[in-house]
């Protein structure tokens, strides 16, 4: 199909094109909800079944890094919204600026996530043969706070003995399988989003987005907000299960 300016040949008008693209993205997001939904269901059932082990697993996560990441991601949603707003109101110079900010914040998030993954790897908390929920307690490094280690040992012993879950290692492994599957797929979506934003930056530097034509910014924005919302659910479900003690 031929393309005239911004109008692709299969459409009659720009409005029709915009309506189609936006509806398409919303439907795609619905499929994403169901995609993540399968994992959330698996999480919910297993957490119900093995609450103690999930609490133990959750408490090994670094809540500071998690919180910082949540703030970073919310900020990136804000800058993305600003990019959409700039495109819609014709502030052509601001569009790439906000997009670059969004991309940077997204990369910060992924960087912090990488640090967290590395920690889990060091602590033998990656599911597999060498998974050992006791590893950190039994092999503390000089950098570790002995008080925190003692507390963790106490918690693990209590979980094993008093709540009668002798297979806490297996069940904590289930938690970490879900942790890596869910945050991993979320990170994959972030990487796809980052790729889309890089494409948008290139187009916006040529000043192509105008109040009449800004659908790409808008629908990538929708996608980016969706990925943020997934994290807004993941954060309490994975980090904050059993912190109140």
């Amino acid at each position: 199909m031929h393309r005239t300016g911004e109008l692709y040949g299969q459409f009659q008008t720009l409005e029709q094109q915009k309506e189609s693209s936006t509806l398409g993205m919303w439907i795609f997001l619905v499929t994403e909800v169901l995609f993540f939904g399968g994992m959330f269901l698996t999480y919910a059932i297993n957490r119900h079944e093995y609450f103690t082990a999930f609490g133990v697993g959750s408490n090994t996560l670094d809540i500071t890094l998690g919180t910082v990441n949540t703030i970073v991601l919310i900020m990136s949603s804000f800058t993305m919204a600003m990019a959409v707003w700039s495109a819609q109101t014709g502030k052509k110079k601001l569009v790439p600026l906000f997009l670059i900010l969004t991309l940077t914040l997204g990369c910060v998030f992924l960087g912090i996530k990488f640090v967290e993954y590395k920690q889990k790897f060091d602590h033998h908390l990656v599911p597999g043969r060498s998974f050992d929920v006791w590893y950190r307690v039994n092999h503390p490094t000089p950098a570790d706070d002995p008080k925190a280690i003692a507390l963790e040992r106490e918690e693990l012993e209590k979980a094993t003995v008093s709540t009668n879950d002798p297979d806490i290692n297996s069940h904590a492994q289930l938690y970490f399988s879900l942790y890596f599957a869910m945050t991993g797929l979320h990170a994959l979506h972030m990487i796809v989003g980052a790729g889309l934003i890089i494409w948008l930056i290139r187009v916006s530097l040529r000043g192509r987005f105008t109040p009449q034509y800004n659908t790409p910014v808008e629908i990538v924005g929708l996608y980016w907000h969706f990925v943020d919302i997934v994290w807004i659910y993941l954060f309490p479900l994975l980090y904050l299960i059993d912190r109140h003690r």
Partner: protein
Amino acid sequence: MNQTPPSPGFHLPRDHYLNANYGIKSWLLTTDHKRIALLYLISVTFFFFIGGIFATMIRIHLLTPNGALVTPETYNKLFTMHGVAMIFFFLIPSIPAVLGNFLIPPMIGAKDLAFPKINLLSWYIYIIGGCFVLYSFSTGGLDTGWTFYTPLSSIYSNSAVTPAVLGIFINGFSSILTGLNFIVTIHTMRAPGMTWFRLPLFAWAHYATSLVMVLGTPVVAITLLLAGLERMFHLGFFNPAMGGDPILFQHLFWFYSHPAVYIMILPAMGVISEIIPTFARKPIFGYSFIAASSIAIAVIGFFVWAHHMFVTGESTYAALAFSFLSYLVAIPSAVKVFNWTSTLYKGSISWDAPMLYALGFIGLFTIGGLTGLFLACLGLDIHIHDTYFVIAHFHYIMVGGAVMGYVGGLHFWWPKITGRLYPEALSRFAAVILFIGFNLTFFPQFILGYLGMPRRYHSYPPEFQVLNVLSTAGASILALGYLLPMCYLTWSMRYGKVAGPNPWPATGLEWKTDSPPPTENFHVTPVVDWEPYDFLNRPDLGLVAGAPLAPAHGDD
């Protein structure tokens, strides 16, 4: 007013989508929905034959009680690979990706689907997924059953499960993108005057199908991904030895895979809703009820999945609810069957090949649907669960229903797709052969199942041999019924009689344009000012009320 049969005076249009440009690149990089539909036609036919070869081997093996052909392990692989090829790579894409892709834009007066590039992408995704699965088939095969139940699939199976699971995971996105494209197209691309209740019922059926594709497929995608991760990295999501829950896998799997049956049957119902009024020369009876029943089937279909698990371990109350909901699906299905029969009533029926397929569909779907009620019944299901009764039931729906609809639809729109007519006498013969072969293959299986022959077993007690031999004999007739259309349809692409824009004549908008249509489907954007299936007020069709219709093929 023209009452004479379409004379041999028709010529192919000068410019159409097939001669718009030439060369392999113009096909592999096309964004024309019609060309993509043909790409799909070739690829799903390929997978149909792959699946068909496995089916043939199964039927030959079951000629004797101890198995005539292969080892028990190989037999497990045969029925698994038959199911995977047929369900994921033939039945699910068949009508939507071939006929839906080709016809929805011209039916609603659009130049193309809303996202032509995504349409092409979905074909490539299908091909990539297909390659993974073929790789699995050719390097050790697959022996888990098409259902991939864990922990067999994730731990114990020694066959090539991982590439197969990844292939089906990838292929899922092809289905999702096709569904998404259809929904958006039907919402935003309709021509002026093409209101929702002037949409052809084929489009309604595809809208409902697309809802299922979009809402169901992501769930099976994540489920198979988790099962694949479990196998690759020894995780325990669905492995009871590690605290996981295998029944959760079954729930998630069937949450898609039951509605997937409606992905197969709803488009076929759409095809039938087009064929019946055309060859009964009557407006369809109860248009809005047929449209609404498609949506109702799609919606209710999402709430019946656990009827596959009545004996797997679910609470009695859950089973009661799922049994009741499964019965409910019978209502919209029956609405369709009754409305088709009412359309036939006092119609001016002509027995063209598409009509024979459509009538065959109604009969076979009715048997398949009614036996579904047997299976939805909690007490009876315990007796016939996992027997050949189930096999016969779903083959009546999927082969007797979906494939009959698909082949019937191919005949019906063949003149539109290629611009040429197929040989009528031969295709009527093929339709009858198909009907006889199908019933001979699968009806004995109802009896076998009721007598207690379990599915997926490589051997059986000697007293079941007669029925098994009948079934295998039927399968060979059935195979002829598929090979015949394959041959004469290919032949007719070059040598068939030129059809003209509307050989039947039918009322749909797609018949208003050239056959084959130009790349942009219509030379000028059409304006729709008529009601659907209205044979009475359409002088352009060349019909006189009450007058018998001249057959499209003249004297042949």
